[in-house]
């Protein structure tokens, strides 16, 4: 059974159709890249999956359960975690507390005490190499550290599905390689399905994703294994425009 299943999901803002009849399936443990130029509906799709918006049409199923109209705070305990394009740390709280919040209200939240959550946070801090910043206010971190912290916070939720919104944008290529390796390792260990949204940096997608879904003007145009998808002429067209036709020359 698919972990996440979207069926003919549409989301409109007034006359603008941000997501148009999108169907897709994500399997447990799968790594999927969602690719598309600016304005192609990626973020809206993420918001529909995490519950920030409810779609006008279609259904969202998670582990066989209809969650189309479930409020976001009820989705996190089911196992849907998320990071944001621009990191959104709880600025005045320390890195440790931020990550503990993830554990506290995530899938294990109901049986974790505050102290237990802080212990989970400590473990994750070691793994993501944030130990030096453990007791700093999250607002004082550098942008890259904030991203790392946000990923750590999402991992502390022990999600089954992790939505990563442009997690790699703005990072140095070396950092990206490290991050990619780390995320891949954790995802494999804990069987987390990852849906990473990517606008520009294809390198991260190629390195990680088993499957790529390409969105264009709200519609899904390609859903295929990575290599195949990136060579698809439709994808090339979306990113680079039409290939010149011989007769026109």
């Amino acid at each position, binding site marked *: 059974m698919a972990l996440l299943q979207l069926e003919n999901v549409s989301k409109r803002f007034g006359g603008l159709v941000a997501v148009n009849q999108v169907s897709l399936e994500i399997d447990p443990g799968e790594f999927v890249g969602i690719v598309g130029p600016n304005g192609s509906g990626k973020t809206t799709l993420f918001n529909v999956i995490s519950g920030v918006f409810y779609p006008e049409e279609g259904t969202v199923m998670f582990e066989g359960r209809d969650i189309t109209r479930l409020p976001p705070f009820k989705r*996190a305990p089911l196992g849907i975690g998320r990071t*944001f394009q621009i990191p959104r740390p709880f600025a005045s709280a320390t890195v440790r*507390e931020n990550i503990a919040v993830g554990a506290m209200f995530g899938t294990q939240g109901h049986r974790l005490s505050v102290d237990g959550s802080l212990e989970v946070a400590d473990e994750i801090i070691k793994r993501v190499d944030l130990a030096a910043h453990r007791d700093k206010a999250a607002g004082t971190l550098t942008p890259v550290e904030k991203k790392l912290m946000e990923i750590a916070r999402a991992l502390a939720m022990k999600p089954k599905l992790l939505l990563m919104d442009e997690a790699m944008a703005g990072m140095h290529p070396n950092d990206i390689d490290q991050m990619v390796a780390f995320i891949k390792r954790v995802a494999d260990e804990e069987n987390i399905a990852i849906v990473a949204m990517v606008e520009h940096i294809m390198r991260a997608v190629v390195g990680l994703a088993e499957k790529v879904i390409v969105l264009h003007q709200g519609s899904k145009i390609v859903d295929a294994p990575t290599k195949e998808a990136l060579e698809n002429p439709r994808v090339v067209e979306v990113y680079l425009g039409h290939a010149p036709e011989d007769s026109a020359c």
Partner: protein
Amino acid sequence: MKQIQKYFPLIPVFAAYLIMFFLGENMEGIWQLMSMLLFYCALGQAFNVFMGMTGYVDFGYVAFLGVGTYGMALSITRLVQYEFLGAWIIVIGFGLAMVMSTLLSMAVGAVALRLRGAYFAIATIGVNEGFRFLIEGARIWNGSEGMIFTADLNKVLGRDTAAALCTYWADIMVLVIAALAAFVTLVYMRSKIGYALTALREDEDAAKVMGINVTKFKIIAFITSACFAGLLGATAWALKTPYVFPPEVFEIHYTIEAIIIVMLGGAGTLLGPVVGGLVYGISKYYLSIFLPGFQLLIFAPIILVIIVLFPEGIVGMMKAKTKGTGVERFIV
């Protein structure tokens, strides 16, 4: 030991309250000042549970003190005829004050807590005035005539005990409420409630996606804060001064004072309301003695300076200064 250490930050708070108490007990003529300071500390401590921890500003906050005052007043004036109840009518009064402020906070919260930031502040700004006009206009609870229940108290408790209640025990009760509010604040801070409130204060949308039922936690903080306000009204405004008039107990400047105290001391900190209450109370007291009539004129720029220099409040600054030292664990 670790469990006990969690409660270390209460030490400076309780120490401050005890010092106020002993100074008031042992020095001639300053009990009135101490009672005012205790009231401001308690007001800050109660208001901080909501404003400090959630970041929402409730401009109608004084309404909770107002209905708390009415709760006590109603209990005393209406139940005094049942003689077998005796002094229990005061206990019932506390219960009624809590119930009434809780109900009002649920009604206000159900509507206003759907709004955010400035919209919430604007939505609440009319609550106290609205309540006052409701009481006066609909002539409920004696309308604008208010209630005077000195005689009722004398009848129930006897003249001497009633006098001691007004001049002494009411202040002690304020102290107990302040300490209780501080304790609850720390318990919240150390529990999931505190973490949830910090998260929603910093970024409500991110908090939601992280699995936090923000509405639930906002309502918890709102009701707790309102409950303490109700108790405070019942003691400081009903038992201490055994009368109640609508314009006095729904006066918006108490809300403003509560905001100033919390901001001055450090919103969301445990020690903040104590420091803020002391600084505000003492300056107000001496300014009104030495420069009567000018206190607000002088106070406004002082507050501006403090807020510009220490945006995190005095305790926020102290926290930053003591980071990494042994004092750190006492200042929260």
